[in-house]
């Protein structure tokens, strides 16, 4: 953390990272030059050339690609009017799909002329037991007297509620907390990276909140952080006391500046109130949370890539096993959940599993934060009872934009499989969506109306994964690139197709997809071709030629 923070600090001071600045840092810290090169060339936040007077980032991913860009371009032209030198960069998803086409000016999100819609979660107030109250953290205060009881209450309630991780993989939360609680500390890791970091020398457990949601269509954690940071903090604290960690880290994407500020304000309040600190919530145990701002990249949402980043390495996912619960940050048992999981965990521990089960609908349990974007009238974040169908969600969000009808949707973000409109009656539930042939993933629903050509959109999604591949393993690094080339050639027409035409495009893609699924190190490579393969499965006539 120290080295990346130092690099960010130096960039803030100098505007960019020159060779001189890096050489000076290398000498001062005794860090080899190549390690600095590895970091500054990997993370999108770092720049090696002097910045322009104004830097505009525009999102190139699917939700923004689908929108008319005229007003955005006028807005940008206005931004550039008054300054001498401006730069415009196309970047990956900014997490403002509800304000598509999204724009950030000098790292500050703007509505691109259309205004930001953040700060609203429709049907809010069920999950947050403290909604409308100024007195918070009652759950942990009440349990903190007796750590033994706290542990068993937390694990038991989460297990009984059946809460599964909301980051996409769906690992049972109670089980994870229990495993990390039971894990013993490992001898300190001794390697080049650990040598440079004091933390590495002192074995301790960690609780990490993954607030790095960066997948196109995904922005629900953003609103949770903004509207109920106290619930995330309480969830992390309960986890810390349960697993025996005294350090919590919020790993947040750098594009979430306003949300980070909200969270930090709440952190201050929690410390002032004695909820965090040397005697956290009166437990007699220390626990505090620090905020680490991601230097950029979708891959960091992969939990072991996130850990590598925290260890000042390139955010390249680790081979698993071992899993973070056994060997996480600096080789120590580490509990990682995402923002929503911590918030919902706090809620479940407060209300109990029976309450949780009662929140669902149609035979499902619990609540879920989902975000909807694409061809929808009122994109945004919704807190829904699990079991709500996609159609119902579309209704809540004001229906399809311009009264068009639904053609297809992604139920769980860019990495979930396309489903056709006739599956829109599927409840937004882990198992139900899986049964329908996709996954709930990040709970990001993207809808496409009848007028959409799906091939270029699916190709755009594959390009996103290619762009965000860390490049560590061969199948993902080379396979995603080959796939993009194949799709580009196919859209340019059969004359330009890379293949000789003997084997259909779909078969080549299927074979490539299978190898990526089977041999990639992490989820990114495993799903990189899912958008195109699943789209063609349902809409084979969308293939060019």
């Amino acid at each position, binding site marked *: 953390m120290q080295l990346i923070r130092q690099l960010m600090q130096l960039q803030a001071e100098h505007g960019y990272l020159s060779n001189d600045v890096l050489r000076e840092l290398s000498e001062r810290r005794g860090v080899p030059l*190549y390690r600095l090169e590895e970091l500054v060339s*990997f993370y999108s936040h770092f720049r090696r050339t002097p910045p322009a007077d104004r830097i505009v980032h525009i999102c190139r991913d699917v939700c923004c690609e689908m929108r008319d860009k005229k007003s955005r371009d006028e807005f940008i032209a206005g931004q550039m009017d008054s300054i001498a030198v401006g730069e415009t960069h196309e970047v990956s998803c900014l997490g403002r799909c509800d304000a598509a086409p999204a724009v950030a000016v000098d790292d500050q999100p703007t509505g691109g002329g259309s205004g930001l819609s953040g700060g609203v979660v429709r049907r809010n107030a069920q999950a947050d037991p403290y909604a409308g109250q100024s007195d918070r953290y009652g759950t942990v205060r009440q349990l903190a007297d007796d750590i033994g009881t706290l542990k068993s209450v937390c694990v038991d309630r989460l297990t009984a509620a059946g809460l599964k991780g909301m980051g996409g993989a769906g690992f049972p939360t109670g089980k994870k907390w229990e495993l990390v609680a039971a894990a013993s500390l490992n001898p300190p890791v001794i390697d*080049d990276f650990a040598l440079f970091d004091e933390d590495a020398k002192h074995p301790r457990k960690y609780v990490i909140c993954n607030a790095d949601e960066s997948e196109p269509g995904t922005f629900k954690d953003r609103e949770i952080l903004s509207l109920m940071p106290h619930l995330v903090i309480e969830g992390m604290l309960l986890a810390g006391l349960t697993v025996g960690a005294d350090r919590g880290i919020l790993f947040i994407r750098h594009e979430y500046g306003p949300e980070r500020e909200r969270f930090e304000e709440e952190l201050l309040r929690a410390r002032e109130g004695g909820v965090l600190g040397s005697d956290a919530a009166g437990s007699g145990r220390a626990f505090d949370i620090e905020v680490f701002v991601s230097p950029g990249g979708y891959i960091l949402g992969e939990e072991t890539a996130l850990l590598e980043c925290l260890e000042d390495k390139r955010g390249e996912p680790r081979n698993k096993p071992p899993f973070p619960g056994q060997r996480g940050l600096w080789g120590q048992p580490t509990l990682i959940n995402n923002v929503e999981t911590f918030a919902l965990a706090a809620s479940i521990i407060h209300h109990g599993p029976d309450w949780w089960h009662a929140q669902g609908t149609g035979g499902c349990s619990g609540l879920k934060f989902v975000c909807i974007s694409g061809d929808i009238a009122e994109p945004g974040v919704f807190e829904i009872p699990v079991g709500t169908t996609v159609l119902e969600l579309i209704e809540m969000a004001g229906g399809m934009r311009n009264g068009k009808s639904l053609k297809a949707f992604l139920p769980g973000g860019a990495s979930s499989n396309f489903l056709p409109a006739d599956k829109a009656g599927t409840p937004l539930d882990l198992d139900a969506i899986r049964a329908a042939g996709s996954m709930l993933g990040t709970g990001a629903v993207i809808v496409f109306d009848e007028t959409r050509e799906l091939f270029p959109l699916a190709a755009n999604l594959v390009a996103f994964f290619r762009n965000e591949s860390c490049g560590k393993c061969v199948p993902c690094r080379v396979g995603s690139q080959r796939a993009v080339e194949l799709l580009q050639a196919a859209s340019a027409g059969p004359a330009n197709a890379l293949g*000789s035409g003997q*084997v259909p495009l779909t078969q080549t893609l299927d*074979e490539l997809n299978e190898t990526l699924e*089977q041999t990639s190190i992490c989820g990114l490579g495993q799903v990189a071709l899912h958008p195109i393969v699943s789209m063609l499965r349902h809409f084979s006539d969308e293939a060019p030629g």
Partner: protein
Amino acid sequence: MTMAILANPATIKVTIDSREVEVPEGTTLWEAARRAGVEIPVLCHAPQLNPVGVCRMCVVDVGERVLAASCVRECQAGMTVATNSEKVEQHRRTLTWLLLSEYPEQEDRQPSADACELEGLGRRYGIVKEGGIRNGEFGKDGFAPHSEFPIPISKFDLSSPVIAVDHAACILCDRCIRACDDVQNNHVIGRTGKGHAARIAFDLDQPMGESTCVSCGECAAVCPTDALTHKPITLPIVPDERTTTTETVCPYCGVGCSLTVHSRDNQILLAEGHESPVNHGRLCVKGRYGWDYAQHPQRLTKPLIRRDDAYPKGPLSSDVAGNTGGRGSRRAGERDGSKPGGIVDYDEVLPAFSEASWEEALDLVGERLRAIRDEHGSGALAGFGSAKCSNEEAYLFQKLIRAGFGTNNVDHCTRLCHASSVAALMETIGGGAVTNIFADVQNADVCLVAGSHSTANHPVAATFIKEAARRGTKLIVVDVRRHELARFATHFAQIKPGSDVAFYNAVMHVLIAEDLVDHEFIQQRTEGFDDLKQLVLRDFSPEQASAICGIEPDEIRAIARTIGGAKRQADSPSARDSQPSTLDSPLPRMLIFWGMGIAQHSHGTDNARCLISLCLMTGNVGKPGTGLHPLRGQNNVQGASDAGLIPIVYPDYQAVGDSSARAKFEAAWGRELDPQPGLTVVEIMSGALTKDIRGMYILGENPFLSDPNANKVRKSLSSLDFLVVQDIFLTETAEFADVILPATSYFEKDGTYTNTDRRVQLGRKILDPPGDARADWQIICDVATQVGLPMSYESPAAIFEEFAGLTKNYGGLSHANLGPTGKLWPCADPQAGDGTQILFGDRFPTSSGKGKFVPCGYLPAAELPDDEYPLVLNTGRILEHWHTGSMTRRSKALDAIKPSAFAKLHPSDLAELGLDDRQMVRVASRRGEIELQAIADRSIEPGCVFIPFHFREASANLLTNDVLDPYGKIPEYKYCAVRVEAVDGE
């Protein structure tokens, strides 16, 4: 991350391709399969590297949702593994296709001796067909290979003189990164960029040749494709059935790395490291790329006799003459863009000699040496042997001088490097060799590196030191220069030049004052502690010493507490398990390395005594992870000393003054021997000036460049009545010769060489000598016969037998039983054993059996800076060159990397002197002056200048002070006063 296997691991059973295999817990599937005889294809892994699992070629089916990379997946009890199912093979084929889809065709790649592993897989999967042509198919269908190279830089990086980089042929297996990091510990290569744009990069993405790369070549050695290849130096590096390989030992430094040499048509084309206890397959730039000197056109091929018109004798080339006019014209050449300096111009020197037959030359040598002996006595003759030659040759040479010439005036360059260390070691612990091998640093809690720029001078040994530091050994570096090891150090103390005694005495002061000493060891194994204690407690408090050495008192305390204090933290299992628990040891285990920074002072013996005292008081001798290790400079400086190339001792350190030893050698050699100790190197040179020495035989040494105060050496060499020089080139010293005898290079003869660890290893004949050149041992026999000591041996093995038979430490060893990796002396069981790693576990071979503390007060250097000469000159070596450069400057690769002389100063000093970086400057001392380029370097202490001594055109030894240490008789190369100024007109 580490794959090491625990000390007594439980074993587990797994089923691999229906075979049940039992392996220790923690074994990877790949390793388990390998042990079971199942080869799983892999590109990113090699057994000496930590696995990373990035190529995914080694995936296997363990019955999970997705396949597992076997190189990183640990075996779990009961696992059932399919390594070559149809599914697995299908995915391997696709992966191979993916990589080949952007891999350049053979004609667009660099040539390489090794078969490309990726193409091998391509053949296996039918993607690459006969003749290396790719069929371009994927599945049953084909699409054209990737057309546009995605990396926005040029495909080739040919900036390194020795390694070609082809980014297009790189598959990002990261083997080179780990070779650079984990094997060589150089930390230069990494990945830059992300995703499909990722590629390897050097430092901050510099061209390789402009980066901090030290050209060790380990990256090219491990590269599975043609992305990193060795550039050809002599012949094209391509597979050729006429190429043969020979296992030998590196001809350069005292580390003695094992070398596999590939040769064809009587030429070497490639050298590689191979597994041995010394270097574990690692090499440095000299060993890997510096062997072509043997094939240099300037090799001497015929005996040469000085022509009558070349008398009176004197230097021939303008550089050796000190004729600035000559150098001035070369500088003018530099402005034209041609290279200044460089090796001798034979056109300047050869006309002074005429070619002769061996008979003529040897007759003349015999006649002239006999005449001097008869007229002026044996004492008027002297010989310098060579630490570059074999044990056999060293033994024969001293035998010739002692029994043939009749004098003990025989010495060699050990006098110039570790004479003071040996004097101190002999005096205090009764043995001059290392007490433990360098690789045992892995078991040390603390490692002190004192006055040793190991990364330049013992590069492969330094990799072990760096590796230990990365695994938790606390490294203490004490030096006047902030060299590369400082980056790995827990403590780095940049002491003032010449202040070692004060610094180490203060460290001992703290150890004693804070009771961090090993009382039991002191009491049982040593004597003289009280005198030392009294001295250091009285005169060397950290505050007192700080005023001399410039290190803050608290830092001195911190260093002492590291030496005497806490044991190292938990470590990687592999470092732990090789060593039984040492919980019974009261203090951390410490190994001390030292080099010329300690030895080459007028109080060098005192410096070494302090290090020995430090080791003794902390009980750090005779146990694993402890010891005293003066790193030896030349490949056979240990062996040459063992063989008796020292004026005061016969082979195996048997004193010439000891009548029983003398009787033994008189009986063996059949001649009466001189009981008087002989003169040392610098004394012999002075003796030539006073005509006490009149005739000399110099074998493979180059005192004109290596001895201090070259202006005096020039006069000395010119004064000799007769000088015969035996060498492979016409060296600067040979310019003063009456007769020059053409010898063989290292690669042209068999012989044994003893490395810094005391390991005796066989060097092998690979090439036939050029022209009439003869093996050194044969020439010695010829000369001996001429002076009345008939000598004839069948082979070097026979000479070794005679030598070993006269010693205790080499007793039992023979060419036949040394085996492929040699033996450490002494070796109790020469047939089966590897020899003795650690000396003095029970007692010291001193008269009392105890180690002796010798207290030393602080003495300043002999010549201190003043207004006229305000800076301190420090001389030494650099990585790419060796000694007087006669070999390395004739190596294309090494010369290309470091072609010219330079003086390094701290940028603040340069600024104060009004000089620019890279400007030509004149450096002058009371004895001479040279002109060379100034380089700003922050590793140099302000007030100091560093100049390497390899460069004849700016010989550092024109400046150095020939004052000697009274015990070791070593000159003070590391300290004299100089002035630096702009060269007129620059």
